[in-house]
């Protein structure tokens, strides 16, 4: 059993969903981590959940990226440990500089809340190791600012380093403008850092982790993290 830490900022609202999926669906140890905490050493993986941290004031994720816990998360990530940011968590990761680019207002100006399809673009990282490139996942999104933007140089680097993990796609897996819910550059739905141990994604895997939620493919991401921990970390044996 591994210990997952779920960071709670004022305004996080998917923290309990993540807790439920990780603890009760996947049977892992899980603890909430208040944004003032600075000791994150006891964790094997850190989750930055969705929500509206600090009311999305100034820019989404900008205030949260400066909270005390993020300094420790940065060190945790630099040491090669897994960090996953979902939705608002992705916005916090780009604002903190752990991931490149920015997330801006959806091109439609509307908040989108629906099921989308995301194609696996790369499985050579600890989050999608159990999937095949080209697999199409069905996952819900719910955001007003998920429009991924970066400079042409950054985009080139993302492609060259295989940092793009998910792209919005059609039912059949084609990358089309119609399947892009928010106007993201190149239909980007999720990216990792260069080292591959920090993932940011707009879709919500914790919302499709068991049958009753009409989808279980989100579980694959957490299972991939657990497999990686099995290979790379000693089980801590916490009850």
């Amino acid at each position: 059993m591994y210990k997952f830490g779920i960071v709670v900022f004022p305004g996080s609202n998917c923290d309990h969903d993540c807790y439920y999926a990780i603890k009760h669906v996947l049977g892992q140890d899980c603890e909430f981590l208040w944004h003032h905490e600075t000791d994150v050493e006891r964790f094997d993986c850190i989750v930055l959940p969705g929500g509206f941290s600090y009311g999305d004031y100034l820019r989404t994720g900008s205030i949260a990226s400066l909270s005390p816990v993020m300094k420790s998360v940065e060190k945790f990530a630099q040491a090669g440990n897994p960090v996953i940011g979902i939705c608002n968590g992705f916005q916090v990761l780009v604002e903190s500089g752990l991931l490149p680019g920015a997330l801006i207002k959806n091109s439609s100006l509307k908040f989108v809340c629906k099921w989308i399809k995301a194609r696996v673009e790369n499985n050579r990282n600890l989050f999608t190791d159990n999937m095949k490139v080209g697999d199409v996942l069905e996952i819900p999104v719910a955001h007003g600012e998920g429009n991924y933007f970066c400079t042409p140089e950054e985009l080139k680097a993302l492609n060259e380093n295989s940092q793009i993990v998910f792209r919005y796609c059609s039912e059949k897996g084609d990358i089309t403008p119609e399947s892009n819910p928010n106007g993201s550059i190149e239909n980007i739905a999720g990216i990792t850092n260069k080292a591959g141990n920090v993932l940011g994604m707009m879709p919500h895997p914790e919302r499709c982790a068991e049958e009753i939620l009409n989808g279980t493919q989100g579980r694959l991401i957490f299972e991939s993290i657990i497999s990686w921990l099995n290979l790379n970390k000693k089980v801590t044996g916490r009850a």
Partner: protein
Amino acid sequence: MKEFKVKVEVKLKPVVLDPQGKTVLTALHNLGYEKVEDARIGKLIELKIMDSDAGNVRERVNDMCKKLLANPVIEDFVVKVEE
């Protein structure tokens, strides 16, 4: 020590699409203001700072912009300092 009034204008970079501005542009056209060719929406942040030197203030506010007030990936900023 003097009181400085600082205005920081934060604007989306020209290459970044501004859907909010586009919507406002359409609304202005609907109101009959057809000569409006473009609308871009930014932010104005006003700060009150006690310091002895305007140069100091400018330098510190520039730092604040880079660290928090603006996101250099998508935004440009202009700092105006008044005594």
